């Protein structure tokens, strides 16, 4: 693991796992979506997951914060095992931030209220402090002047940056991204990717489902390729793109590159 991340820009992954998934299976009814996933993510590690539509990428990362329930195998996040224990689930969710394809901002709240909701109600941060933090993160994603507006008044790229800031306000240990740029117009993709790259350089642990290969090349320590509910190939970005081992990976890359 350490070797893989050598020479990468930014922080290096430390040999200290924060997420451990072993032999994890998931079914939707009779449909076997995830077929024995094994994955260990180190602190500060950045992983990009790609693969064809329907291969189970979203389902995998949604299992990590229990938006989907796995039926077999084991998932441990920050030394807490994900079971039906509601308190543990809530604890893990405060440590794991998630950014969705469709932003999912709360349309009835202003931007600043979107950002402070979690800190105030979950972390019990005093309102003034929560707002101060929120402004800090809004500045970080370059939209502090929009704080008093409502999500509907912002462009897609701005909304996604707000969504990232909203997750950051909870001070998470891991960030999950599910195709964060695929609902955006091309000219807005870059502003979101730039924010994510900054985040990567600050040492955030990230798992990103994306087909933005430029992003994968510049920040990922590892790229995973999923197909039919399995992780078919794991490799460094350099190897992954120039010298893929698996036939299905080759086919997939030939289609998207």
């Amino acid at each position, binding site marked *: 693991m350490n070797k893989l991340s050598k020479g990468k820009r930014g922080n290096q992954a430390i040999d200290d796992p924060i997420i451990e998934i072993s032999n994890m299976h998931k079914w939707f009814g009779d449909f076997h979506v995830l077929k024995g996933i094994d994955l260990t993510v180190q602190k500060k590690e950045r992983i990009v997951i790609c693969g064809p539509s329907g291969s189970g990428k979203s389902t995998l990362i949604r299992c990590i*914060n229990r*938006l989907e329930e796995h039926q077999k195998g084991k998932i441990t996040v920050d030394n807490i095992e994900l079971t039906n224990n*509601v308190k543990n689930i*809530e*604890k893990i*969710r*405060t440590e*794991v*931030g*998630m950014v*969705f394809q*469709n932003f*999912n*901002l*709360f*349309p*009835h*709240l*202003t931007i600043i209220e979107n950002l402070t*909701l*979690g800190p105030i*109600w*979950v972390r019990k941060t005093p309102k003034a402090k929560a707002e101060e933090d929120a402004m800090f993160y809004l500045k970080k994603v370059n939209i502090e002047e929009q704080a008093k*507006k*409502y*999500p*509907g*008044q912002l462009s897609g790229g701005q909304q996604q940056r707000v*969504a990232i800031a*909203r*997750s950051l306000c*909870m001070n998470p240990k891991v960030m999950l991204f599910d195709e964060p740029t695929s609902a955006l117009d091309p000219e807005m993709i870059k502003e979101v990717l730039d924010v994510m790259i900054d985040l990567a350089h600050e040492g955030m642990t990230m798992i990103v489902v994306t087909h933005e290969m430029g992003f994968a090349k510049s920040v990922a320590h590892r790229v995973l390729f999923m197909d039919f509910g399995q992780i078919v190939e794991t490799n460094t970005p350099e190897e992954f793109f120039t010298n893929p081992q698996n036939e299905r990976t080759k086919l997939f890359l030939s289609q998207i590159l």
Partner: protein
Amino acid sequence: MEALSANIKEDLKPPRVNIGIIGWVRANLFNGVFNSILTIVMLFLLWKTIPPLLQWAFIDSTWLAGSASCRQSPEGACWSIISKNFRFIIFGFYPYELQWRPLVAMIILFSLLFYSRNRNNWKKSLGYAWITGLILMGILMKGGLLGLKSVETTQWGGLPLTLLLAVFGLTAAYPLGVVLALGRQSKMKGVKVLSILYIELIRGVPLISLLFMSSIIFPLFLPEGITINKILRAQVAIILFTAAYIAEVVRGGLQGMTQGQYEAAEALGLNYYLTLRLVILPQALKIVIPPTVSILISAFKDTSLVVIIALFDLLKTTQSVLSNPEWMGFSREAYMFIAILYFAGCFSMSNYSRKLERELSRG
């Protein structure tokens, strides 16, 4: 390229439309043959009806004199039926010399309602004000405390009774309806089935039959010697009935919420209760303000059905005045007066809902 940027630079003002009264009339009343005909027909009908109505209601009418002088001028309205019986219509059989008490209670109620109109006033202190106000109103109506003479609830009637049934009925039915709607969406099978059963059973019966059941059938099941206040029973029937309808409307609002909203809230670590309270309900309830208010308005009017179980609400006190030989035959005036009171209540509700919608739709 040059031409293009020149084009972009010129910001045009929106074209001015010729407004003014004539312009407005032309644009709205006479824009086309059909609309012109319609306008003329309407004007004709108004001219035929409004002046005679005004003549009847205001010019030929009797305001304060007794019923005898009313009968001498039958071409005008006899508002004396209201002015001469005002206190009975409003307060029913509440002891005459104690009628200041329900009056003060109603003033407290209206002040609280008026003050609560402004959302900026929705603070904890307002909640305490309401609780204090409700206790005060109860003491005023019931007496038996603080040196106030006790008044049996059988003597309550008129407007205070109508307001009591309406205000308590609506404020209790709303949260109950929301809970039922959530129950119907619940993942717990038992809760879900019970909610559905309740909602469908209640919606399958008319309010009248619920009121009959509560006043006639229900007491049969009680052990001898135990009676439950009749007003309370009617109140419960109204609450249970209205809640079922509100539940269905709120369910519509909940279905309008995307899965993404739940997920985003949960991903922040909010528990189920907080997710509902902070994210889902504020949006879902806002969407359904218009249909909810329709239900509340019709529930307000439906409180008048308690006449059938012999409660003397506003409608019943009016009817008993009309059954007095002295005032027989002046039902037009009497019912018009009642209609105006109900209209004032309903209109302020719908007015308020529009104000609320406007305020909440920012963003």
